């Protein structure tokens, strides 16, 4: 043992006036019908004035529960012990009156889902004014004036009018701005932000992180940023705390944790994120297995079942959080083998089995010589926008998909990316409908959907299958897994004996046991369910699989396993994928080609490495720039393109180029050159070589990574 066995140095920080919040040995237990669940098991940390502490962990790690405990906002049946001191004053056990005096005034909170976090029946301005009036004698009018100022500070346009609007009249990003305005209203010393950007699109996420920075500058507050996204904390946090199974497993400066992680879980987590800035085939290290159930933890380190480095002692005693002697004096790690890891400077690929995606046979043939699996030309889908119930009348058209073209060759993965509302899902449903489109053509495996008969359509559905986003909603909870997998086979008339055999093979194929066929979906974790979803899609041996955000509902460590599985299956079964996602890092990792959508149009497309390394359309540049890299040094050096405002309504798209209202390039153009953007829709033109297209009048490459 070379690690110094002492209590973390910040334990005796009580005397330090710089310490705003000091949490010591926090335990939170919820009594449930099936026994007690201890969600937080002895958590200690401190936050100093003006500092940003990132708390990172997967769902169920106790990161949100611990901060709600500090705020005194847990349900009354929660049993809390330990201590949480705000500037030396104990917060736990305060009565409602005393705690309410601190909440919102000294410690403010920003929540994850801005849609449900604002009361629907009061105006945004009133809700901010309320926060002010609770804690001071400020008059009604002064509070209203101040709330308009606050809305202005967080970047709401026309704050005076918008203050009178109700939450449902705000977009997601604007609501989160309003939440931040509310949080900083009383100039708090500490802001706890619980997954503040998780529910938002990347470009909006970048805006909100900027606003949080502004808010911090305006108030000088310390921030506790709770997130599962390591990219978000990389550029934002000064220090990190990694949580696993209700405990801190590693803490230190952001650089220490990212570059010198000493706990296998931290390393695994970092190794399982696909990198936006890594071209070619980057190996992902999935952390196999699932987080433990907190209802009955066995003795020892809770990470043992998932840890390739586990030795005997690991399942006997739980390792304490110890200082790493060779790095900074605030770097602590809870692992029996931390000093070994430090000595040999092990990385995630040393510890976890790294899987490099294999190359498929099809890929050896040049793209042009491979058969086309799906060809979409000028596809259009417009929805009528109607008003009234009794007398419906059309008041406009939602141009959800407005003339898009792309093709997928055999053995290829096309990533279709864009923000919510850009038309990705509409495109998918149009393709899977396999009927004559409103305009344009869809050719599936050489057959035009416009001329298909019902019989053709039934037959061709075997070859085109889909995997859905939400593994919880997409499996019938009342059907055993075996029946779920057998259903497509039954529909297409496969005899029973063969079906049973097929189901067993499918389960094995996706890494589950054949015995699992008798179980029900609720007995599986999210990652396992998504594997079942994939198995169902593969039951009919399709040639093209449509993947609709297949990993976005999964935790990071689980995500990597599913991505690796998809890559392996593609090669083994010679599949082609249409991969729809908003996560560009995942797309870079898995896709061969990418098409970027904005308001129903494809603005840029081409081979994935070309589009990501030499993005030519300003929207692609902004989108890539908005994604935080899980790399603190790189992240801090990047200059970020922050897009203005929200996605315009597809019912009333801007004239000419649809992106011009938010375009950073347009903003810098002179009047004469702007005219072209205002009047003409830019055609898709080749950039560099013929395979890379961008639809911008003034396309030029900008390096944003």
């Amino acid at each position, binding site marked *: 043992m070379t690690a110094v066995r002492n209590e973390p140095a910040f334990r005796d920080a009580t005397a330090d006036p710089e310490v705003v919040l000091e949490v010591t040995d926090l335990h939170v237990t919820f009594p449930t019908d099936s026994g007690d669940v201890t969600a937080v098991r002895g958590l200690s940390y401190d936050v100093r004035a003006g500092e940003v502490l990132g708390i990172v962990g997967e769902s169920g790690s106790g990161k949100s529960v611990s901060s709600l405990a500090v705020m005194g*906002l847990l349900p009354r049946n929660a049993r809390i012990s330990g201590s949480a001191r705000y500037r030396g004053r104990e917060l736990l056990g305060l009565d409602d009156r005393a705690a309410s005096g601190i909440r919102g005034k000294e410690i403010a909170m920003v*929540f994850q889902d801005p849609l*449900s976090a604002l*009361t*629907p*029946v009061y105006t945004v301005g009133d809700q901010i004014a309320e926060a002010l009036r609770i804690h001071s004698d400020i008059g009604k009018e002064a509070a209203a004036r101040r709330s308009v100022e606050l809305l202005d500070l967080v970047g709401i346009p026309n704050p005076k009018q918008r203050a009178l609007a*109700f939450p449902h009249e705000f977009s997601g990003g604007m609501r989160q701005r309003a939440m931040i305005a509310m949080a900083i209203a009383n100039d708090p010393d500490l802001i706890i932000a619980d997954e503040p950007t998780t529910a938002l699109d990347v470009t909006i996420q970048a805006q909100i992180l900027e606003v949080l920075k502004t808010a911090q500058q305006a108030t000088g507050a310390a921030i506790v940023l709770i997130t599962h996204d390591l990219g978000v904390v990389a550029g934002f946090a000064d220090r990190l705390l990694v949580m696993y199974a209700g405990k801190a497993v590693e803490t230190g400066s952001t650089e220490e944790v990212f570059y010198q992680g000493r706990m296998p879980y931290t390393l695994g987590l970092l190794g399982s994120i696909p990198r936006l800035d890594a071209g070619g085939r980057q190996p992902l290290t999935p952390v196999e297995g699932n987080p433990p159930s907190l209802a009955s933890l066995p003795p020892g380190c809770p990470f043992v079942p998932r840890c390739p480095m586990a030795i005997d002692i690991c399942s006997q005693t739980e390792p304490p959080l110890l200082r790493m002697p060779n790095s900074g004096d605030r770097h602590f790690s809870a692992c029996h083998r931390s000093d070994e890891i430090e000595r040999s400077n092990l990385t995630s690929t040393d510890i976890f089995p790294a899987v490099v995606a294999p190359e498929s046979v099809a890929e050896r043939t040049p793209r042009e010589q491979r058969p086309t699996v799906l060809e979409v030309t000028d596809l259009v889908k417009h929805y009528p926008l109607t008003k009234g119930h009794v007398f419906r009348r059309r008041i406009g058209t939602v141009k959800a998909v407005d003339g898009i073209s792309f093709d997928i060759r055999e053995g290829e993965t096309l990533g279709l990316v864009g923000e919510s509302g850009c038309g990705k899902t509409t495109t998918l449903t149009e393709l899977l409908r396999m009927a004559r489109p409103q305009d344009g053509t869809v050719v599936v495996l050489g057959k035009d959907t416009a001329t298909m008969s019902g019989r053709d359509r039934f037959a061709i559905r075997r070859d085109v299958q889909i995997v859905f986003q939400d593994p919880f909603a997409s499996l019938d909870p009342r059907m055993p897994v075996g029946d779920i997998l057998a259903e497509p086979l039954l529909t297409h008339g496969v005899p029973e004996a063969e079906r049973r055999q097929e189901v067993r093979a499918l389960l094995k194929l996706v890494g589950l046991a054949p015995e699992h066929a008798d179980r029900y979906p609720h007995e599986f974790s999210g990652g396992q369910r998504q594997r079942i979803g994939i198995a169902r899609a593969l039951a009919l041996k399709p040639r093209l699989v449509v993947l609709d955000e297949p990993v976005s509902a999964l935790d990071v460590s689980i995500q990597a396993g599913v991505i690796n599985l998809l890559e392996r299956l593609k090669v083994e079964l010679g599949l082609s994928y249409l991969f729809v996602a908003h996560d560009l890092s995942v797309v870079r990792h898995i896709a061969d080609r990418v098409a970027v959508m904005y308001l129903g149009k494809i603005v840029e497309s081409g081979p994935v490495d070309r589009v990501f390394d030499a993005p030519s359309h300003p929207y692609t540049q902004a989108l890539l720039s908005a994604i935080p890299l899980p790399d603190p040094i790189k992240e801090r050096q990047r200059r970020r393109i922050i897009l203005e405002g929200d996605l315009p309504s597809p019912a009333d798209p801007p004239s000419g180029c649809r992106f011009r209202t938010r375009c950073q390039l347009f903003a810098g153009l002179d009047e004469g050159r702007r005219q072209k953007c205002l009047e003409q829709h830019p055609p898709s033109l080749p950039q560099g070589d013929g395979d890379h297209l961008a639809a911008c009048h003034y396309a030029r490459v900008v390096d944003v990574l």
Partner: protein
Amino acid sequence: MLGFLLRRFANYLVLIVIATSFGYLLAASTLNPRAKYDTMQPRPPEASISQTLSNLNMNPADPKLDRLGRWAKGIVTGGDFGKTIDNKPINEEFGRRIWVSLRLLLIGTILGSVVGVAVGAYSAINQYRWSDHTITFLSFVVISIPVFVLAVALKQPAIGFNGLFGTDVLFIQGEYQAGGGGWSGAAILDRIQHLVVPTLSLALGLVAFYSRYQRATMLDVLGSDFLRTARAKGLRRRQALVKHGLRTALIPMMTFFSYQFVLMFVGAIFTEKIFGWHGMGEWFIDAIGKNDINSVGAVVFFSAILVLIAGMLADLAYAALDPRVRAN
């Protein structure tokens, strides 16, 4: 907005005509006004019965549609609903009974709604505690007792209560004592003494009913993020629960309130019957018993209007409470 209201009003008018016509025709085909005379001793001469019924526009010998036409004509031209089978003007009956029902039901309905909401919200906030269990148990006891049993059961303690004082404090029959009425101080006291027990019987049922629904809507809100936000701002538990929680949890209750409140006018049949108040509900039941087609038609007409008013009230209340449904 005006156009919307006008369109809606036109819709309503059509619905009222249809509902009333169906109601009248149903009454005309099932009720037999002759029965009154057939059982008379001595039985009046046939011609005289026929003549009397024709005068009342209730002669089964006339085609039903003709009778409906005549009845409707009276309403449209002179606002005249015709005569009851006892040859009294229906309009007068209407004018009197509406107010009787209103006086009987207004306080009980308001009391039941307010207390029901309070009890339901309290129950939700204390979910699974003994107070919640007690409230739940008592509500189900009340809900499972038929209204007429509850009303009769309440009479007994009222009599006992009077026994304690040795004089009649609470009355359980009628609206006021014989020869009473009017609105002098003493008369008002007398009215209140008559009102307590029926109001209680009415309110109890409503409290039990509303508290169940309010508990459910409140529970939905209790777990909501915006309530947590309100507390994170620094609102105390109670303040947050009332200002942000209850206000939002009341929205889905509006439909119940409007319909229950308005339809009380014709729906409190048992309460009126048992406590001897001569209101609309009693009239409806008596009219059927007496084969009084015109009166039944009039009550159906009245109910149709009430249903539509309730619908409109519910919509208005919704829009007032919930900005999300306001038309823009």
